[in-house]
Structure formats: C-alpha cells, structure tokens
C-alpha cells in the first residue's frame, strides 16, 4: 500500500476510489437500516410508533427493554433457545466428527453413496417434511418437547457438519496421525490427540455455525411446540405480534436480544466459515 501511495495517483483512479467508497458506504447503510429502524422503534412508546412521523424516538424509553422480560416469559424463551442450540450442536458434532473422519481418512464401499446422500439430504428442508416429521415425533413422543427439536436440528445440520469437517480433515496431512499410530496409538487416540487439536479452528467454526442455525430455526419449532413455556426465542417473540395488535416496540426490543449473541458469534467465524465452505465445496 505504501508503495502505491508514493506514486502519483491519476484522477481516474481517485474517482474510481471515491466511487468504491460511495458504493460500499451505501451498501453498509442499507444493510444496517433495518437494525437501525428496529433499535429506534424499540425505544419508542406505543403512541409514538402508531402516530408515525419520527425517525428517532422523541425520548428514548429504555424501559421497553426491561418490560419485555415481564410481559412474556423472555428468560424462558432464551433458556430454551440456548438448550436447543447447544443440544443440537453437541449431538450434531458427536455424530458428525466420526463420520467426517471416516470419509476423510478411510476408504470403504458406499463412500460415494454416503457422501451423495449427505448432499441430497440438504435438499429436504424441514418445512417440506413437516408432516412426516410431525408423525415421527408423535410416534417417539417428542412433539412439544425441546429434545425433539434438538434431534431435528442436529439431523438437518448433519450435512453441513460432515461437509465442513471433512474439508477441514482432508486439508490436514495424515502423516502425524500415522506417526502416532506407529507409536502405539489406536485410531481413536490418534484422532483425539493429534487430528482434533490441529483441526480446532475448523471444528469451532462448524460448532458455531450449527449453533447459529439451530438458534435461528423457526419453522419446525413453530409447528412442533404448543406449550408457551417450551418455545424458543424465534417463535416466542411472536407473543408481541398478536392477531389484532402488534406491539412493535416490544417485538423489536426482544428481537435485539435474539440477534446480538448470534451476530457476535457470526463475526467470529465469518472468515473461517467461508474458506471452510469453499474448501469443502472444491474438495468435494
């Protein structure tokens, strides 16, 4: 950068640069606009919202952020979301790590078929299968339960888990594990002690990605959970979105609580996730 700065810069380049800044700035403003609108609305009074005409709140009513906790079982929703997302992540990883390991390090009959199935399974979004899912859950007595959602989220995230982890594992040379095997480690030991620590960044990325997916899941929870106290945040915040009246200020105040943890997590993995997706994709 310093080298280019020393050179005389042509007007054309300056204009292009300004244009670049202008466009990127616009994109950022548009992207952040809904969040800005949500925050402003969350700080307004009901009357101010429905009379319209103001962008920023006349007086910021911070108590909206406190009221939601008593107006709806927000703490419960939050806890449910944490349990669903956490549980799904654990199960998805426990099933996905061995599978990804086998795909990356072993050769077996049906490998391609299994991989093909993993890819095709992405095609079946839970929404399309809801009727089937509902019936299976009824048989297993898991409708209206957090455990049911945990399993569903874990299963539907298997494809991504296996995909990302297989890419990660394949990017790591098997030499060290072989050395460990010669030293007397069995497969499980060499995986736990050698491969997993090296693959940690990829694993953390996958972990967070599943957590976010499960946290943001809406459709299955909407369909399976009837009990208000078992709802996750995504479904629960609709308490403020009634048939006759929408309590926008509360809806958005609650939404902000639902967004913040996820956005922070996402920004942590953004860089790794993308290269993971790409390497998984390119390496097939």
């Amino acid at each position, binding site marked *: 950068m310093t080298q280019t700065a020393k050179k005389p810069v042509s007007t054309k380049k300056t204009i292009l640069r300004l244009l670049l800044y202008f466009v990127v700035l616009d994109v950022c403003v548009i992207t952040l606009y809904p969040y800005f609108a949500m925050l402003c609305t969350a700080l307004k009074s009901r009357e101010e919202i429905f009379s319209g005409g103001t962008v920023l709140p006349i007086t910021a009513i911070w108590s909206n952020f406190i009221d939601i906790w008593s107006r709806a079982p927000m703490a419960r929703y939050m806890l449910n979301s944490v349990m669903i997302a956490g549980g799904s992540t654990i199960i998805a990883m426990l099933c996905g790590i061995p599978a990804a390991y086998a795909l990356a390090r072993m050769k077996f009959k049906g490998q391609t078929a299994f991989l093909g199935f993993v*890819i*095709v399974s992405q095609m079946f979004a839970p929404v399309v299968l809801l009727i089937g899912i509902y019936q299976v859950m009824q048989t297993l007595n898991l409708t209206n339960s957090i455990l049911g959602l945990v399993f569903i989220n874990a299963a539907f995230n298997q494809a991504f888990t296996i995909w990302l982890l297989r890419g990660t594992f394949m990017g790591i040379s098997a030499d060290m594990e072989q050395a460990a095997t010669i030293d007397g480690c069995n497969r499980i030991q060499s995986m736990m002690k050698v491969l997993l620590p090296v693959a940690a960044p990829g694993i953390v990325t996958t972990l967070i990605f599943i957590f976010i997916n499960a946290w943001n899941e809406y459709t299955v929870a909407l*369909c399976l959970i009837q009990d208000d106290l078992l709802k996750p945040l*995504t479904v629960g915040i609709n308490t403020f979105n009634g048939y006759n009246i929408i309590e926008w200020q509360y809806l958005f105040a609650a*939404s902000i609580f639902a967004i913040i943890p996820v956005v922070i997590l996402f920004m942590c993995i953004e860089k790794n996730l993308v290269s993971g997706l790409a390497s998984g994709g390119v390496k097939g």
Partner: protein
Amino acid sequence: MSTKTPAAPAGQQAQQSSPRLPNPGTKRFFRTIEPYIWIAPSIILMAIFIVTPIIKVFQLSMNKVTRAGKLKGFNHFENFTNIMKDPAFSLVLKNTILWTVAVVVISTLLGFILALLLNNQFKGRKVARAIVVFPWATTLVIQASAWKFIVNTDYGTLNTLLMELKLISAPINWTSSPTAWFAWEIACGIFVTIPFVCFCVLSGLQSIDNSYYEAATVDGAGYFQKLFSITLPLVKSSLTVSTVLNIIYVFNSFPIIWTMTKGDPANHTDTLVTYLYKLAFYNGKQGEASAVSVIGFLILLVCASVYMIYTLRKGDEDL
C-alpha cells in the same frame, strides 16, 4: 505407560485365543467394518429424523388420509389430482418459480458485484465485511418483521424517512396490492441472500493468484477483459455451489412469507411451502399437503442432482 507393558502380552494372548477366526482374519474383518461403525451414529440420526419423514411423506401422498393422519389405503394418486384441480395451485406454483428465480438471480448478481468491490484493498474493508454479514446471521423471522414494519404505510419508517428527506410529500402506500407485498417479500429475500453469495465468491476470489492479473495487465488487458477471462472462470465453482444451495434454500424458504403475509390474500403470495403448511396444519388435508411436498421434491431433485453430479465429479478429479 511403561509400568503397564508387562501386562500387555497376556492381554494380547487372551484376545488371540478367544475368537474362532485367526487373528489376521479378524483384523481384516474389523478393518472392513470399521468405517461403518464410524459413520453409524450419523446414519442412525439421519435415518430416524430425515429418511423416515421422507418415507412418511411419500406414503401419505399416495394414500387416502384421515384428518388425524391415519392411512386409509392407496387412492390412485387422488391427492395429486385434487391438488392439480385446485385453481390456487397453478398460482402458487407460478409464485414459487417467480420467488426462487428472482431471489436467486438478483442476489447472485448483486452478491457477485459486492464481492468484487469488497475484494479491493481499502480502509475500513474489515468493518464493511463485518456489516455485510449481518443479514446472514439474523434469523429470517426478525428480518422479515423489520421489513414489514419499514414498509407500513401509516407508520413505517421508510415513508417517514423519505418525508424527512423531502423526497416525498405524502405517505406512499408501498403495499397496495398482493403483487406489491410479494415484491417486498422478494426484496427481503434478496437482502438476506446477498451475504451468502458474496462470501462464497469472496472466498473464491481470495484464492486467485495475483500473478494472473499482473500478466494480463502486461498483455494490455482491460478491466472487463480480466473480469471475464480470469475472474469469472476461476470463481465459477464457488458461484455454482452458492447458486445451487441458494436454489434449494430459497425454494424451501418459509419464514419471510409467513411473517409478512402468511400467503394471503387468497394464496396470492403463497409459495409451495406456505401453501402446504396451510393445507396440512390449518385445513387438515395431510394427503394433499404431502402431494405438494412430493411435487416440490421432484422440482428440487433436478437441481440437486445437477449439484451432486457436479460436486462428486469435482471430488473424483481431486482424488
């Protein structure tokens, strides 16, 4: 560990004597089945929670089904013919195709351009990338409620903002017709899909060796020449992955439409997934709803097989 070594031979002997097969054979047998043990948990999980529902849906679509979901025998594809006869179905199908094509095409185009921009070196690039990722991380329900609020005629912030900026003098009714609502839903869909495309392309762009561009510059190639003969071919694989995944996600996307209009009025903003949700859980027509699911699969199957063939072929090249 060293203290335990004396015990090891004894253990090995015990292991050798117990199975009927000689040791090398057992070992080979274990080698053959070992991978299957490793993939077993994953297979069991997916078998119960993905494959069984798939089978159930196919079963339901072929059978007469009671409101309680009990099967009452094969009914000669009556569920399918019933669906085809429903005048709403062709509208829903048209909406689904419009929704999928519009969202995927426009977001791919804009996401690609945005990725090209963000791939430049400039101050604040990291901040810009972090901001662009926001819509991807936000759950669709919340994103959709925010847009539903923004475009509201009476108190939406879009009208307020435009009036403050003196661009308009009176509130505009942004959602005067079902078509307008549907357009806003598509806009919202595009808005949340752009980041995914953008980051897939960015990862492809970052793997391109700079020397290609330098060589092309020496040869006197212009910006667009470089774009079409270097950049585009090299990010093609990332772009294919993101496009195919997007087709599947967008086709199956439920929360945006459900939050903004619930498919109303009169199916004018329904897509296949909201339509089948209403059929199954509001009208109790599980057989017909399953038929819609199956039709959806068949449409997506074409897309997914293209994806599978593409990625597996890619994999073989690498192996």
